[in-house]
């Protein structure tokens, strides 16, 4: 195969993959403007009515509120825990270090389904059957590993000589932490928080077993809605979420660079 032919077939394949990645999302956005109640593609006529329908749907609005609250609380709790853990790991030379790193990787590696089930069962055994509490604990587990990973990635880029220079200039441990380390790793922390928030908001696997009839998250509300009703209001609410998520992500990529979230072990 000549070099030019190789180059062209590679290019075509790559673009086909881009289309593959974006196709479902683009279709959702297109369908959300459909006038008809059926999700035909392409739409026969255009309308914004389903956006209104979606925003009027109490299941959706309630779900959004719950998802946002849970994500917010989980992120706020997971961040201090995660940042301290990352700093502790980074500055430690203990022989337990690899074990602790593996421990923090566990929530990502253990399937979300299993995490949710285990939490449900264990909390039920100690008589905790309140959905918000279950959701909160489960979502802290979702967010924390990402905060730890991005903070560690930021710390890895920190020149250790900076810490030593500060120490030789008379700074105490606390001052080194507050004035040197934290300001420099702030982008990493923020990136982890934002990404963790997004994943928590969108989560289904863990939440599936932790919700109940009164308290449910948006993705699960949408899923329930889909089971008996198949109209474009689902597309509308999904499109809104896609738009918001993309804007946040583009901002994240510009300032931090998202590749570091998924560095291999």
């Amino acid at each position, binding site marked *: 195969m000549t070099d030019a032919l190789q180059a062209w077939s590679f290019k075509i394949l790559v673009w086909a993959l881009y289309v593959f990645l974006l196709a479902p999302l683009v279709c959702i956005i297109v369908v959300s403007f459909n006038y008809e109640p059926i999700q035909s593609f392409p739409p026969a006529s255009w309308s914004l009515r389903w956006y209104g329908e979606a925003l009027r749907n109490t299941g959706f609005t309630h779900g959004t509120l719950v998802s946002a609250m849970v994500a917010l609380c989980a992120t706020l709790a997971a961040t201090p825990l995660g940042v301290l853990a990352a700093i502790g790991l980074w500055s430690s030379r203990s022989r337990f270090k690899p074990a602790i790193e593996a421990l923090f990787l566990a929530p990502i590696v253990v399937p979300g389904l*299993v995490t949710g089930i285990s939490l449900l069962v264990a909390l039920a055994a100690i008589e905790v059957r309140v959905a918000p509490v279950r959701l909160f604990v489960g979502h802290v587990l979702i967010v924390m590993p990402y905060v730890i990973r991005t903070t560690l990635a930021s710390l890895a880029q920190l020149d250790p000589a900076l810490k030593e220079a500060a120490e030789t200039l008379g700074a105490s441990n606390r001052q080194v932490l507050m004035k040197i380390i934290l300001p420099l790793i702030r982008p990493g922390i923020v990136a982890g928080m934002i990404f963790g928030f997004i994943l928590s908001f969108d989560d289904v696997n863990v939440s599936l077993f932790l919700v109940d009839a009164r308290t449910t998250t948006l993705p699960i509300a949408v899923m329930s809605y889909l089971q008996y009703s198949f109209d474009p209001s689902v597309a509308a609410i*999904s499109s809104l979420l896609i738009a918001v998520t993309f804007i946040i992500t583009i901002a994240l990529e510009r300032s931090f*660079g998202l590749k570091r979230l998924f560095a291999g072990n």
Partner: protein
Amino acid sequence: MAGGADLEGTLEMTSAATAGPSSKAGPRRTPPLQSSAALAIPACIVVVAALLVPLAYVLLLSLNRSAPGVVDLNGSFTLANYTRFLSSSFYLRVLGKTVYLAAMTTALCATFGSILALAIWRAPARFRGLIIIVVISPLLVSIVTRTFGWMIVLGDNGLINTTLMTLGVIRTPLHLMFTDGAVIVGLLHVFLPLMVLPILTALDRIDPNVPQAANTLGAGRFTTATQVILPLATPGLVSGITIVFSLAMSSYITPALMGGPDSGMITTLIYQQFVVTFNWQFGAVLVAILLAVSLMLVGAILFETGRRTRKWMVRR
């Protein structure tokens, strides 16, 4: 190296602790930042309490006698539930199908993920951020949204069928949803980013002169990519494969929605046990077996690649 530093750290901690109200002339020595692995303890407690303990609980539950509706552990120890699973051809087939679908997805993901990673790696810097966003876009939207989108693409009135019918290629719609293929497509879509990013990180660690050297020695693009670049990206490939395989084995929503209730994945059974029949004990068995099979296969992959790359891999 670790042993010596550890001792040093311990000595310093001890001497600082026992120094007491200082009778020495100089300022008292504060413990170095090195000994603050303790900072990680709260997070460790959270993970252990919220994940490991419940997981252990569930695994223990699998050894209890089956009692629908009962969640508490009791003293009964039995392997009856395990026997029930292992002696049933139905359950074993389900397990086999799950492994098969996960393996297919992982293989396709590795192939296409490598291609995407190479594309990003060679792209001019100004496009890189944009392409990465496109690549991780599936992760950013809820799994429900993703699956819903695929329903629109693959459905009987969906994008593919409408296009093919308008072009006159087919006359009746192809039933693409609720097939094994649909499940693989759905899983592939969400796992591609998780494969691409570790491979990309590994590629970035390769000396850019190395592929150029291959080029000067007469290697074409394909040869350079397969014989030089990708072998050097093995750590990333392995990382991606293990993550994708584990997640594929344990995915529930996508197979359920894309493949329908007869998708034949073990996770569907798990859901049924916990939410429909309330047989927590048997459900726990399914969870345990799922975890065990995943971990064994992942362990095998890691062991084999470790063995092959040990001699030349420079670990950072």
